C-alpha cells in the first residue's frame, strides 16, 4: 500500500477476499497475480533444493576419489539436480512467475484469457513436481541417466526412470497450457488501442516463448511416453537390441530440449529489455528489431537441435547443416545486445540493483553465447564434447542468463508485487557476492574442460584439482550471496518501506497503477502510448 488514502479507495489483490479464505484463497485462486506468486514460492523452494544438490556435487569434486558420496549416489544427484533445475525451475521460471503476474498488466488486461485453465496449469505443475521429487525416494532409487534420459541406457537401467519421465510429461502439459493461455491473451485481450507494435517488449518475448512452449513441448511428451512404452512393453523404438535407433531418441529429445533453452532465455531477454530503458530513462533503441528478433530466435531456435549430437553418429551432411543454423541463431541474439548497449549510450543511468543484474546478465550472456558458437562449430565441439566446458557454457547461459534475469526481475518488480521496498545496500552487496561467486564457480570449468575434464565424472586426474577447488569455493560464495539476496527480498516484501506506484520512474503500464495492484489491475481508463518506452 502506498498510503492510507489509497487504502480506502481500493483493495489490493493481496487483501482481496474472494469466495475462499486462508490457504484455500490461494489454492483455488484464479487471479493471475496470485498464481504468479504461487509459482514464485514453489520455484524458489525448488531452486534451493537443486542448488544444495549442486553444492553437494561441488564438495564431492573438491578432491579426486571418493569424498562424501558413492559413485552411484553422485549419478543420482546430478540427474536429480538436472531434472529439478531444468524441468521445474528454469523452463517454467520466468514465464510462469513474471509472465503470469505482468503480461496481462503490461497489455492492459484484467487477467489472462483462461483463468481457470491457468489455475489448472498451476495444479498440474505441482502434481508434476511431486511426482518428480517422489521418484527420488521410491524403492529402485533415483534415476541415474542424467536429465536428458538418453537411450539405450534409460531403457534398461533399474532406477526410477519411468516415474521421473512421467513427471516431466506432466510438467510439459502445464507448460503447453500456459503457452496457449498467453498466446490467446495477447491476441484477444490487449487494451483498446494497443496494437502488436505498441506492446512492451517483455510481452513480445512471452509471445515468442509461448509459441515455442505450445509447439515443441508435445514432441518431448510423446518421446518420453515412447521411452516408457519401451521400458514397460519392450517395444524397440530406441534400443538397438530390439531393432530401435538410439539416435532417434536424441533427435526427438533435442527437437524439444533445444527450443526449451529459448523457453528459458527469451523471457530473460524480455526482462532485460524492460529494465534497461527504465534505468537509463531513455526510449529503447530499435523497438521493432528487438520485437522481431524474439520471433526469429524462437523460429530459428527450433531448427538447431542437432548441435547436441555432433558426436552421436549423425551423418556429416546433417552435422554441417546444424552447425550453419546454429551460427544463424546467434544473429538475432546479438541484435538484442547491440540494441541494449545503444539504449544505454548517453542515457541517464541509475545503478540500482535491477540494473546491476541487467549489466551482469549482458556480461555473462555474452560469454555463454560466444562459447556457444565454439560448440556450434563441429571441430571444437568434437574436442570439448561431454567435458566440463559444456557444463560451464550452459550454466553461463541458463544461470548467468535466465538466473540473473530472474534476480533482476524480482528486484525490479518486487515493489509492484508486494507494495514494499527492499534494502538497496544489502541488495547491491548480495549482487556483488553472487557475481563473484558465479564466475569463480563456472569459469574454471571452461579451462579444465578444454584440458579434458569430462562432465558427469565422479573422479578425476590430479591435474584438474586446482580448477575443481576454485570452482567449489565459488559455489559456496554463490550460495551465500543468494541466501543474503533472498533474505533481503523476503524481509522487504514483509516489512519494507511502502513502495510508491512508480519507484523507478518506469513508463510501461504496470507503473501507472497502485502498488500492489487491485484484483482487476485497472480501475481507471488507460492511456495507451504508441511507444511504451516514451521518456521524452
Amino acid at each position, binding site marked *: 500500500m502506498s498510503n492510507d488514502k489509497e487504502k480506502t479507495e481500493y483493495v489490493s489483490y493481496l487483501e482481496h477476499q474472494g469466495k475462499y479464505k486462508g490457504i484455500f484463497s490461494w489454492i483455488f485462486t484464479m487471479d493471475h497475480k496470485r498464481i504468479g506468486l504461487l509459482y514464485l514460492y514453489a520455484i524458489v523452494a525448488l531452486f534451493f533444493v537443486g542448488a544444495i544438490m549442486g553444492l553437494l556435487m561441488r564438495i564431492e569434486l573438491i578432491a579426486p576419489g571418493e569424498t562424501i558420496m558413492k559413485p552411484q549416489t553422485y549419478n543420482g544427484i546430478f540427474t536429480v539436480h538436472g531434472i529439478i533445475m531444468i524441468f521445474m525451475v528454469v523452463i517454467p521460471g520466468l514465464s510462469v512467475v513474471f509472465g503470469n503476474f505482468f503480461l496481462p498488466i503490461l497489455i492492459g488486461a484484467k487477467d489472462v484469457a483462461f483463468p481457470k485453465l491457468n489455475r489448472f496449469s498451476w495444479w498440474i505443475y505441482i502434481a508434476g513436481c511431486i511426482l518428480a521429487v517422489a521418484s527420488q525416494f521410491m524403492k529402485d532409487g533415483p534415476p541415474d541417466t542424467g536429465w536428458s534420459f538418453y537411450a539405450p541406457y534409460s531403457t534398461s537401467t533399474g532406477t526410477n526412470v519411468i516415474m521421473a519421465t512421467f513427471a516431466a510429461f506432466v510438467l510439459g502439459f502445464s507448460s503447453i497450457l500456459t503457452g496457449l493461455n498467453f498466446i490467446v491473451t495477447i491476441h*484477444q485481450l*490487449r487494451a483498446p488501442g494497443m496494437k502488436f507494435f505498441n506492446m512492451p517488449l517483455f510481452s513480445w518475448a512471452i509471445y515468442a516463448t509461448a509459441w515455442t512452449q505450445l509447439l515443441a513441448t508435445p514432441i518431448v511428451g510423446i518421446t518420453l511416453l515412447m521411452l516408457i512404452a519401451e521400458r514397460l512393453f519392450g517395444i524397440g523404438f530406441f534400443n538397438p537390441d530390439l531393432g530401435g535407433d538410439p539416435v532417434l531418441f536424441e*533427435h526427438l529429445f533435442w527437437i524439444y530440449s533445444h527450443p526449451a533453452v529459448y523457453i528459458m532465455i527469451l523471457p530473460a531477454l524480455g526482462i532485460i529489455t524492460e529494465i534497461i530503458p527504465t534505468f537509463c530513462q531513455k526510449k529503447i533503441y530499435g523497438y521493432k528489431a528487438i520485437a522481431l528478433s524474439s520471433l526469429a530466435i524462437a523460429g530459428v531456435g527450433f531448427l538447431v537441435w542437432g548441435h547436441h549430437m555432433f558426436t552421436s*553418429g*549423425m551423418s556429416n*551432411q*546433417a552435422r554441417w547443416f546444424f552447425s550453419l543454423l546454429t551460427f544463424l541463431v546467434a544473429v538475432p541474439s546479438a541484435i538484442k545486445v547491440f540494441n541494449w548497449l545503444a539504449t544505454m549510450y548517453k542515457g541517464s543511468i541509475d545503478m540500482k540493483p535491477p540494473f546491476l543484474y541487467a549489466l551482469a546478465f549482458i556480461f555473462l550472456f555474452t560469454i555463454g553465447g560466444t562459447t556457444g558458437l565454439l560448440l556450434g562449430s563441429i571441430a571444437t565441439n568434437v574436442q570439448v564434447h561431454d567435458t566440463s566446458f559444456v557444463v560451464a557454457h550452459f550454466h553461463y547461459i541458463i544461470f548467468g542468463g535466465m538466473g540473473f534475469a530472474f534476480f533482476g526481475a524480482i528486484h525490479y518488480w518486487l515493489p509492484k508485487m508486494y507494495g514494499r521496498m527492499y534494502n538497496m545496500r544489502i541488495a547491491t552487496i548480495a549482487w556483488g557476492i553472487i557475481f563473484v561467486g558465479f564466475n569463480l564457480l563456472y569459469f574454471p570449468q571452461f579451462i579444465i574442460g578444454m584440458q579434458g575434464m569430462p562432465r558427469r565424472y565422479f573422479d578425476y586426474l590430479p591435474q584438474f584439482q586446482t580448477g575443481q577447488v576454485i570452482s567449489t569455493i565459488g559455489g559456496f560464495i554463490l550460495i551465500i550471496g543468494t541466501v543474503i539476496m533472498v533474505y533481503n527480498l523476503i524481509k522487504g516484501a514483509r516489512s519494507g518501506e511502502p513502495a510508491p506506484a512508480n519507484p523507478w520512474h518506469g513508463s510501461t503500464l504496470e507503473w501507472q497503477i497502485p502498488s500492489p495492484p487491485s484484483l482487476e489491475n485497472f480501475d481507471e481508463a488507460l492511456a495507451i502510448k504508441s511507444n511504451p518506452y516514451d521518456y521524452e
Partner: protein
Amino acid sequence: MANNVSHITEYKVLGKVFLVLLFLTFLTITVTSFELAAFSVTVALLIAGVKGFMILTYFMHLKYESLLLRILVALIFVLYALVVLITFIDYAYR
C-alpha cells in the same frame, strides 16, 4: 483485439465435408492395394493432408478467422515440415 463474432456453418455444408472425408478414408484404404513402392507413404500423407485441411477449414472454422490466424496455422505446418525434413537429412545420408 477481441473478435467475438460467431459463425454458424450450415448442416448441408458440414454434411458434404463429412462425405468427402469418408470418401478420402476409403481412398486411403483402397490405394494400399496398389504397389506404389516408395510413394505409398507419400500418397497416404497427401490424402491425410487434404483431410486435415478440410477439418481445419470447416470443422475448426479457420475459414472464418482472420488472415493473421490462418497464416500462423500455415506457418506451424511449415515448421513441422522443416523439422521432419532436417531430421531426414541425417537418415538419408547416414
